[in-house]
């Protein structure tokens, strides 16, 4: 229970359903005052109090579990390391994979609990028993509230993890959840949503990374290799980024320029016009299949390439230990380190971490030097 409205209503619904529910708030900061303060984030003392108060209203026991060290090692450290490698990680996804449905789940099971229930906006569906043993696990599907859907950040979970997960909110819209919270007398009913990275107090990711990684000046080049600017750390950039490039001279054609590539070894950031971002093919590693066997043959599906991104029609196939995805239409802003999540309509098939892209306009694969 984060102290927000979603986990409070999820806990209340689980208790109503007859489960023996215990509220758990995760203390994730090594130094509680250092993370985001105020109503927007998580991990503050105020959030812990809000969560405790919600548990009191629901009538369930409530405990704080200290996961600060695990969170630092598995999420914060990973976040910094990935940026240092020129990738763009998603820490919420990593937190689900390593903390909520790993460290927390393991501890809960050892203590005698059966499942971890969260307020994520996603659905779990159980296929009919006629399906083969390999597809006996639950399937992960999008929330009915497409705007709040969080299946993307859960798609890294394995069938084992999903079989011990509960998402009671997947069939409701956020508005419905808020109304229900108010009807239940939960004071968090109108608490603002948290959005940005919870462990970056002021929301300034670039400043946070500079504090962690130090200054690492480098050049900004255009596609022809001409220097057009400089920066103090390539980790401050994401492929597809337009703002904050601070390029002194406008492009010859006067059109906006975007980050096309990041080479952390040389510190080089390459910029160019929007059409150079067009990606037609993606390679990804560590595929996870959620509730279905790995595809034996190329599969036509939808692929989502970042949180709250659009779903692109694509064909995906296994390529050794990795995954290849051919987009039917080019997509822009595809960054290494993000997850490529495959959907069959609204149902998640699986996911993999993007390691490289083939640009429509470029001659070579873009992957780390």
């Amino acid at each position, binding site marked *: 229970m984060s102290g927000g409205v979603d986990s409070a209503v999820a806990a209340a619904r689980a208790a109503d359903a007859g489960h023996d529910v215990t509220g758990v708030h995760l*203390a994730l900061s090594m130094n509680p005052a250092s993370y985001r303060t105020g109503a927007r984030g998580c991990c503050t*003392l105020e959030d812990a109090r809000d969560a405790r108060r919600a548990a009191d209203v629901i*009538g369930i*026991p409530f*405990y704080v579990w200290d996961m600060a060290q695990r969170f630092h090692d598995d999420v914060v450290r990973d976040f910094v390391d990935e940026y240092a490698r020129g990738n763009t990680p998603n820490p919420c996804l990593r937190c689900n994979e390593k903390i909520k449905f790993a460290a927390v789940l393991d501890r809960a099971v050892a*203590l*005698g609990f059966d499942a971890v229930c969260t307020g994520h906006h996603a659905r779990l569906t159980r296929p009919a028993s006629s399906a083969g043993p390999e597809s006996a696990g639950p399937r992960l599907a999008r929330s009915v509230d497409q705007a709040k859907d969080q299946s993307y950040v859960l798609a890294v979970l394995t069938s084992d993890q999903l079989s011990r997960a509960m998402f009671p909110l997947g069939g409701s819209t956020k508005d419905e959840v808020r109304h*229900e919270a108010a009807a*239940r007398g939960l004071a968090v009913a109108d608490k603002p949503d948290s959005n940005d990275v919870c462990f970056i107090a002021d929301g300034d990711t670039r400043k946070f990374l500079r504090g962690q990684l130090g200054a690492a000046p480098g050049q900004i080049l255009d596609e022809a290799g001409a220097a057009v600017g400089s920066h103090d750390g390539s980790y401050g950039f994401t492929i597809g980024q337009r703002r904050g490039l601070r390029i002194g001279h406008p492009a010859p054609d006067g059109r906006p320029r975007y980050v096309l590539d990041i080479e952390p070894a040389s510190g080089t950031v390459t910029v160019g016009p929007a059409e150079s971002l067009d990606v037609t093919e993606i390679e990804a590693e560590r595929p996870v299949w959620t509730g279905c066997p790995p595809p034996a043959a190329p599969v036509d599906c939808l692929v989502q390439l970042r949180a709250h991104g659009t779903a692109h029609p694509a064909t995906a196939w296994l390529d050794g230990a990795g995954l290849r995805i051919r987009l039917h239409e080019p997509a822009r802003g595809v960054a290494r380190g993000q997850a490529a999540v495959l959907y069959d309509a609204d149902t998640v098939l699986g996911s993999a971490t993007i390691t490289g892209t083939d640009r429509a306009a470029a001659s070579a694969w873009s992957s780390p030097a």
Partner: protein
Amino acid sequence: MKYPGNASGRRSAAENAVYLDHAATTPMLPEALAAMTEELGQLGNPSSLHNQGRRARRVVEESREQIAEAYGARPSEVVFTSGGTEADNLAVKGLFWARHDAEPEFRRVLAASAEHHAVLDSVKWLAEHEGAEACWLPVDATGTVSPATAREFIERDPGSVALVSVMWANNEVGSVQPVAELAAVAREYEIPFHSDAVQAAGQLPVSLAGSGATALTVTGHKIGGPVGAGALLLCRGADPVPILHGGGQERDVRSGTLDAPAIRAFATAVEISRMRRDDEAKRLAALRDDLIARVLAAVPDAVLNGSLPGPDRLPGNAHFSFPGCEGDALLMLLDAKGIACSTGSACTAGVAQPSHVLLAMGTDDARARGSLRFSLGHSSTQQDVDALGAAIGEAVQRARRATGR
């Protein structure tokens, strides 16, 4: 749509039928509850001069006399406060300020490293903001300060000591301190001596005159009285600088309208606990010894922290480390079985910190985190001990699985 709340039959606090956390707070005695309930219906500010005021004043003063009698003090030596924390703050800060104002050389505050946070944090605050020098008296492996240690610390520079504060009995591990001997050492050097007697008051013969202390902290809700009423027993001639300024109701040392209903209930609880104390101490010690035997039988590698059972340990206290467990996981598992206990010191964020008391006793971090306190009181029964004995073994096994051991 109507959603069920607490009232719908979900688990409630009352279902914690086995209450082993009397050191946190203990049920109000029926007599105290009756006295308080009756008094809450009465009108009158004890400071008012009219009839209603006089009536309330009489209630307060009779209560003061009862409390003074029970704790070896004169009525004028009872300064009512809102509880133990306020009394500790008043003693530590107030006596420091008074001494330091009279003689700027007096700046050292000697306090045991295993004190309750009400003393510990007051001393730290004085050191950080008021020019005091905090001198932490080390405790031995049982959590006890020796008089020789106190003397050694004083003699490093006797002319600079503003105050000595050592608790009567430790709230976590129950170790009883040699208060009279410590007070005698301080007295040799004419240094004020304060002792937090909150945990001791219901179970041991606590006496201001008998101990030779300058000031003692006591509170109502640990002995069957209400939360919100306590006192600093303060020798005549000791004049701490006030923390709360206002009407000067209590010897000009503490201001605020006196809470006649809570004070009357506090005095009722003091009176009853004094009458029953010796028998109750024997009864609790026997129950506690059985509890220790049952826990050690179920978990042979559990370690009893604090002094051995006997005169050096509070009769109602048992405190264990369970190797390979996290205390908060054990507490949760026992709570789920309806058994209430404590990991020792609570924290506002709810994140378990290793107890400073155990660390001061030389316990390592892991063992300190794997600790639980079971504390008995006037409503404790053999059934409580039996229930814990039946549940502790499995709970420890589970908690060990959760830490991967």
